């Protein structure tokens, strides 16, 4: 299955609606970083990622590791639009007994490949998946999405070094470069500098992309999938809260759900 640009655009719009709806219903959650990541995830799931809707645990599926596990609304929205999760699942987000846990959790949700919530771990986990795939002689790819603030965690660079050492050519990392972390703008908290140059210096192939230009995103994902010489990093320049005007580039919506009134405004904009 490979969706057209129009189909991807429409799916991203629906996912954005899911994101604001489920965080509003939960009364908590992280809409900002979900909205910055969603175009990237829709493009990946809609074009390159090999998975089975009717068999989410299929052994030889490509893996998608949402290392920035607080962007769980984006994950659940994509799985919902792909037909793996039901409307009732996503609307139970963060409630007792829900399979849609506050942060993505592979133990709770079929179709989720990682238990997140603690930043800095997903690249290492993805590297483990990538090494295992090579041991198995499988061509499956491992995609990891990390936040830009997340790269402040030292473990990210342990993994970057190890991926290069082990020549994990099947490891593809997407950095959601939205410039905002929990407390405020990244540059105020801990400047991370030229993230592309950093990955490059660790021996990775790197490209930058406008993370909301779906045609460009699909192009760079295709490039990444077919690049088999080194581990690959895509630095996706994004806007936190993208698609909902009052959330865009607004640190307040990193970890705050929209009120009922804000939900109404958001859904009008996403109509």
């Amino acid at each position, binding site marked *: 299955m490979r969706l057209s640009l129009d189909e991807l655009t429409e799916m991203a719009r629906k996912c954005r609606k899911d994101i604001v709806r489920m965080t509003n219903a939960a009364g908590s959650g992280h809409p900002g970083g979900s909205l910055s990541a969603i175009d990237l995830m829709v493009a990946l799931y809609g074009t390159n990622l090999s998975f089975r809707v009717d068999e989410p645990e299929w052994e030889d599926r490509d893996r998608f590791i949402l290392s920035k596990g607080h962007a769980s609304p984006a994950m659940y929205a994509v799985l919902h639009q792909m037909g793996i999760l039901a409307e009732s699942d996503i609307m139970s987000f963060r409630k007792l007994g829900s399979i849609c846990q506050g942060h993505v959790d592979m133990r709770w949700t079929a179709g989720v490949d990682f238990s997140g919530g603690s930043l800095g*771990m997903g690249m290492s986990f*993805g590297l483990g998946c990538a090494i295992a795939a090579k*041991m198995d002689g499988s061509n499956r790819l491992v995609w990891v999405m990390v936040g830009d603030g997340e790269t402040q965690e030292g*473990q990210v660079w*342990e*993994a970057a070094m190890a991926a290069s050492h082990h020549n994990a050519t099947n490891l593809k990392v997407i950095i959601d470069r939205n410039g905002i972390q929990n407390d405020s703008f990244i540059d105020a908290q801990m400047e991370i500098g030229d993230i592309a140059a950093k990955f490059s210096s660790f021996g990775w192939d790197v490209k930058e992309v406008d993370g909301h230009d779906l045609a460009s995103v699909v192009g760079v994902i295709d490039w990444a999938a077919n690049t088999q010489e080194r581990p690959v990093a895509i630095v996706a320049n994004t806007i936190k809260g993208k698609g909902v005007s009052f959330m865009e580039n607004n640190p307040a919506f990193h970890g705050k759900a929209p009120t009922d009134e804000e939900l109404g405004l958001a859904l009008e904009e996403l109509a």
Partner: protein
Amino acid sequence: MSAPPESCASRDGYGRALLRIAEDPRVVVLEADLGKSTKSCLFRSEYPERTVSLGIAEQNMMLVAAGMASSGKIPFASTFAIFTERAFEQIRNGIARPGLPVHICGSHGGIHTGSDGSSAQAIEDLAIYRTIPGMTVIHPCDDISAEELTIQLVEMGGPSYMRTARNKTMRQYDYENMEHLRIGRGSVLREGSDVAILACGVMVEMALNAASDLSDEGIESTVVDMHTIKPLDNQLIDRLSERCGCLVTAEDHITFGGLGGAVAEWLSLNRPTPLEMVGVADRFGESGGTDDLMEAVGLTPTGISNAAKRSISRRNAVS
């Protein structure tokens, strides 16, 4: 099979076990620079294609292991006990929370490690890993049992932590006498009705020496190798409480939260029974020869036999 050399450390048993379980293609080994010390080097030399070197980066190693486990592998990841603790949160959140079958081996645990000093002498590892839901915690007393218990981990499912020791200890098991050696079941090594001594790791040998000394004074003790700290063999503790009416725990570990803590929790909630703990007091170790250090912190047969007499006195005072 032919017996290995007579004098070995439990870490040698771990290394041998990795070779024996290698026939299972799911088994992979992860190292963080200390393979020569933990003895995973034995696996590396035979199966380099299934050995993953992660360098001096324990946090990354734990999540690489988790990722491999999620892809159908059974990873055995080892480093010094103390350095596994550096990655505690990775183990908690990345391995145990999703319930992945990653088996962590921390070698060089305890005061027994000796002259490297307090930075290497993990005396809190058993306690902290015991607090993680679903985590099995094991501390074998010799190379043979370390080998057998490691082999049993392959089919166990969930995550585990095993502490092995750097230095040689007297062998308590042989290959012909291991039927009763099971994860989660204490191994009774000596029978007696006056007091029960539950020991783990390098303290098992000392407990047997203490039991011999006590016997010379007319006190007969049961000695148990409590190699599994979690899940605790509660049924055995109940039986010993009923039979002896007083107990002693002995561990090369701080007296909070390890074997002594686990036994105390069980007894106080279920069968209040006099219990004395032999372990490291609220202090760090220091450099020194192993024997001198163990003496300095009170981890000796005499320390155990004195604790046994205190426990007996308390029982007698109650009854």
